[in-house]
């Protein structure tokens, strides 16, 4: 019996390991290669681990100003999250709790615009951005990212608000809060898991976006990190070392944010408020 349990545990561990290797291999391979000297990266047959690990590629990208581009990406991502989540919270709350004319139509529209592929929007938004003088500005990127992500974020928050007990909001109203104040003092504090989930969703898009950023910016000043990484695929050659190093560096902040916000994914934030 004991042995059976042990065997099953071993088997499960082996399967998990296999899945983990499958998922992580590209990243681990990138990590390994980023630590190899340039000549070892492209040698054949490839070796799994660098014979003499080096940080030269990492030093190189920071010499190339990676910090500035990371700063740009952070600025744009943070502003996009702030704008998108504020608007999504207001819109989602209105859809969840107020019965107004055109509510159904708006909800259909929110779903509808989510299904428009970004590629089809590049040219029109490029023209629009140029016309209003926001081409090659970080503000332009923030506005575009927010526009792309707002429907999905609003829909997520709408769903979360619907799951909250409405009596708690009614209590706040009776206790003297206006609808906006109820949202601020009661609904949003109770919606932390939903807000965090929506914010991460927006963050992953804004942080990783390459297509929009490369289209809508041209100068070095407004360049975001994914675009900067692309520049290692140059006209005259591919600089695999810095490219891989930069890619790995760009993963780090996202992982850090996920780990930091993990506690908000805990359920049971509304526990004890209502009975029944």
């Amino acid at each position, binding site marked *: 019996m004991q042995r059976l349990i042990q065997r099953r545990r071993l088997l499960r561990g082996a399967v998990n390991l296999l899945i983990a290797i499958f998922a992580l291999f590209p990243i681990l391979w990138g990590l390994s290669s980023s630590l190899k000297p340039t000549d070892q990266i492209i040698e054949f047959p490839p070796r799994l681990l660098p014979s003499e690990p080096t940080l030269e590629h990492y030093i190189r990208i920071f010499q190339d100003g990676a910090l500035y581009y990371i700063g740009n990406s952070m600025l744009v991502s943070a502003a996009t999250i702030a704008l998108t989540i504020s608007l999504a919270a207001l819109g989602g709350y209105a859809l969840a709790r107020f019965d107004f004319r055109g509510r159904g139509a708006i909800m259909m529209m929110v779903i509808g615009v989510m299904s428009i592929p970004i590629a089809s929007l590049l040219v029109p938004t490029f023209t629009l951005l140029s016309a209003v003088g926001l081409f090659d500005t970080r503000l332009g990127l923030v506005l575009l990212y927010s526009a792309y992500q707002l429907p999905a974020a609003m829909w997520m928050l709408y769903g979360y608000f619907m799951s909250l007990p409405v009596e708690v909001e009614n209590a706040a109203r009776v*206790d003297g809060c206006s609808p906006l104040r109820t949202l601020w003092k009661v609904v949003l504090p109770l919606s932390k898991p939903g807000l965090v989930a929506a914010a991460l969703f927006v963050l992953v898009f804004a942080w990783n976006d390459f297509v929009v950023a490369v289209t809508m910016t041209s100068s070095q000043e407004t360049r975001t990190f994914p675009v900067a990484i692309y520049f290692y695929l140059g006209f005259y050659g591919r600089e695999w070392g810095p490219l891989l190093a930069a890619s790995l560096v760009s993963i780090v902040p996202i992982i850090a944010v996920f780990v930091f916000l993990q506690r908000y994914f805990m359920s049971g934030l509304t*526990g*004890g408020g209502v009975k029944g």
Partner: protein
Amino acid sequence: MSTVTFQAVTKTYGAVMALDALDLHVEEGEFVSLLGPSGSGKSTTLNLLAGLMDADSGRILIGERDVTPLPPEKRDIAMVFQNYALYPHLTVFENLAFPLEVRKPKPDAAAIRSKVELVADTLGIGMLLARYPKEISGGQQQRVALGRAMVRDPKVFLLDEPLSNLDARLRIRMRRDLKALHQALGSTIVYVTHDQSEAMTLSTRVAVFNHGKLQQYAPPADIYNRPANAFVANFVGEQETNFLDGTALMEDGQLSFSTAFGAIPLGRPASAVSGHGALRLGVRPEAITATQDPTAEARIVLTELAGADLFLTVRGRDAAEVVVRADARATRLVAGDGVRLVFDAQRVHLFEAEGGAAVSLGGESAAV
């Protein structure tokens, strides 16, 4: 403290009439219960008063002020919800302080603290102030919900089935506490319940609802002793009222009602029943006395012991049944015994078979 007035207030949900032209006036300092089965309009009435719903037509006044168009936050009321609706992200102290914190102008911190502590001590939850709602028991959550309503001397208290989530013992204790609280505060309270015993024990007046219509609005004793119609007679009281079909007839110069249990003297003039069409008789179990009589046609088919009382189900002619209350300690009656029933003429009610309206007791009024 304030009066509350409903003037011809109507509310529909689509095609469903939730509240039909309600007129209701609550005096200052009264404890009024809105009583009825689910879907009767009592909760709609409360939500309309709170401003959580808008009326289709009619006016609602708190004191002299017409609050019909006002949102809840402008009505100066306090409400206790059925599921308490505490703020789960705030401590008990912060929950109690919340209505004061959002006031304009906001009282200073010391005033809030002293007020919260006073209320918490009154309700015996002073030691829970630092806890979160999920860390305290159901009864304690209930007290916090009450405290949150009390903390800010509102014009009217609205209570929406506040005791229905408590277990039976605690419910009866909280009922006493509520009554004591009302006597101490002297505030106007509108209380929604589907539990007739809560309504009867707590209220100065009870408003009975059914199908969106106010059936009767009177002090508990009147509701119990002089129900306005068959619905009220049946809904109010621990035990169901017995209804018997029959016909009124004159016997030895006395008006009586002929039923499956024989002729029941009504003790009122013949004029009392004229012009009402077919009649039904309603009588509560405690208004009937059963005495053993082996020759009698009526037989006991079932006995139920309820502590001090023994309830006898008695079957007469045509399989008609009535429930009779007997003193559990004084009775030796068992199932199968023949019994003779005596009806207390003073406590026998007549209703029109059609519609169920009460037929006045001859001179006295049983109207709303």
